[in-house]
């Protein structure tokens, strides 16, 4: 159980219009899962993300990482926070060093690692996001494409070797190819054992990657379940102003029109079910 949120609440004192409070959120993020956090703009997703690695402190409630309170006082605090890596929205806006190497090395250096360890960490992190070390290390981050810059920013977090990776809108503003690369990276990192929490508006991306989905509305956790369970509840999501993947919309429309067609998450499964239904002339389709 890498992260457990216990009745987490967060209230802003100063600027209520800009930021959203969180109310009584209890949520467990399981080892190795890929949890998508969805919700309307302003529902509190980004605020919640910042609690996961202690950037914000709860007004009440606790955040436990591997059973320990991330906001405890004392020496453990820093070490616990390094276990959770947070990649902000548009993380490339935070690149600042003159070379790719220095930018990625910033985190591990800050952790007090030796030069050799830092070098090793940077190499590994770059390899994990598909950036060639020799070709890229001395380049200025600012002359890279948008997709490459984002991968440098991601590598900077991976170099700290977090067990849990929290990504806030990782594909926003990327073109389809860069998005495919990045989603591929995220999927692979998850398969290699990193727990991932991904905030996203892109429901088709969520359907493609997530094993579980949690839904926030006005600072409260209102739904959680498997991707299939959550997206099957189209009315509830629509009432919150949330979209669902096209495959779910289609299945629902066909059911309304009298075809017995179940919900499926993946395009291949949808195609199998629909092909069977069409061949069967509308008889039972799985």
């Amino acid at each position: 159980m890498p992260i457990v949120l216990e009745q987490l609440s967060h209230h802003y004192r100063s600027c209520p219009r800009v930021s959203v409070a969180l109310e009584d959120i209890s949520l467990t993020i399981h080892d190795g899962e890929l949890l998508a956090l969805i919700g309307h703009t302003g529902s509190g997703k980004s605020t919640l993300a910042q609690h996961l690695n202690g950037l914000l402190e709860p007004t009440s409630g606790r955040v436990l990482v591997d059973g320990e309170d991330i906001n405890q006082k004392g020496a453990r605090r820093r070490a616990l926070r390094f276990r959770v890596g947070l990649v902000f929205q548009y993380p490339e806006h935070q690149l600042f060093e003159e070379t790719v190497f220095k930018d990625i090395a910033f985190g591990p250096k800050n952790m007090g690692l030796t030069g050799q360890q830092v070098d090793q960490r940077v190499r590994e992190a770059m390899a994990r996001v598909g950036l060639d070390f020799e070709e890229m290390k001395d380049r200025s981050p600012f002359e890279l494409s948008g997709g490459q810059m984002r991968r440098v920013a991601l590598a900077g977090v991976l170099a700290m070797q977090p067990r849990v990776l929290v990504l806030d809108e990782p594909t926003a503003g990327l073109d389809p190819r860069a998005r495919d690369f990045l989603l591929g990276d995220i999927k692979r990192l998850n398969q290699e054992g990193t727990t991932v929490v991904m905030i996203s508006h892109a429901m088709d991306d969520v359907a493609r990657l997530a094993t579980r989905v949690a839904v926030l509305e006005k600072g409260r956790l209102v739904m959680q379940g498997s991707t299939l369970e959550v997206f099957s509840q189209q009315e509830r999501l629509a009432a919150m102003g949330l979209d669902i993947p096209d495959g779910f919309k289609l299945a629902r429309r066909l059911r309304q029109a009298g075809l017995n067609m179940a919900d499926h998450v993946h395009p291949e499964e949808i195609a199998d079910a629909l092909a069977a239904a069409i061949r069967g002339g509308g008889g039972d389709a799985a």
Partner: protein
Amino acid sequence: MTQSPHLTLSELSYYYEPGAPAALDRVSLQIPRGQFLAVLGHNGSGKSTLAKLLNGLFLPTQGSVTVSGMDTRDDARIWDIRRTAGMVFQNPDNQLVATQVYDDVAFGLENIGIPPEEMPARIDRALEMTGMSQFKQHAPHLLSGGQKQRVAIAGILAMQPEALILDEATAMLDPQGRREVLDTVLRLNREQGITVVWITHFMEEAARAQRVLVMDHGRIAMDGTPGEIFSQVDRLRELRLDVPPMTRLAHLLQERGIPISSGVLTVDDMVEEVKRLCPSCLSS
């Protein structure tokens, strides 16, 4: 109505630096008045460069661009050109300057020397056309992303343009903001006859255009109706573009031997195709 070309590119090339690869390579294109044209292409394909050439922000290295018959290289006409073909950019926060929505829309009018007594009517009308009238007195920075973009569009509409060029105007917005902005621009195109060049990464947005252009390596790689373009799934993949989920599903069904037509773009299209292929499947 005659379909005289409104925006014309002739053998247009553009180089950011001498000796660099061409960002646009001998592109010829005619955009008729009143058309809604979507431009797709991966990053670096030349689509943003194209946008900036269309209203004279960049000038051609070779070839020419004309807007309502005016050549963008003609210094004397450049302000007429920019007023005729207004441009909306990606980041709404970089486009708003004033502390009130009303003043923000007024800003462009002051710049082009519209007499003060004409301004209120123009501003009110522009805010009405973008559905932002009720926010007239609001501070722009407290609006949602979609609302900010609609204010940016109102600022341009107040100048009474004949064409709107939107360079990934929805890229930084959430789904609701994207819908708001696209619906607004579609309505302006339909009701006001404004020519629209809509540059985007989102296939489902391009699917709503009359015509879709795909750029690659500074050239036009594909040009056709959404149905024609999106039915070429393999070609789009080659060009490093995605296809809409329902188009991909149609492709998967074809692979499974279902004779589904290739022009499927939306959930509605797919439902129609299922009806056609299997009338007995659906009771209504």
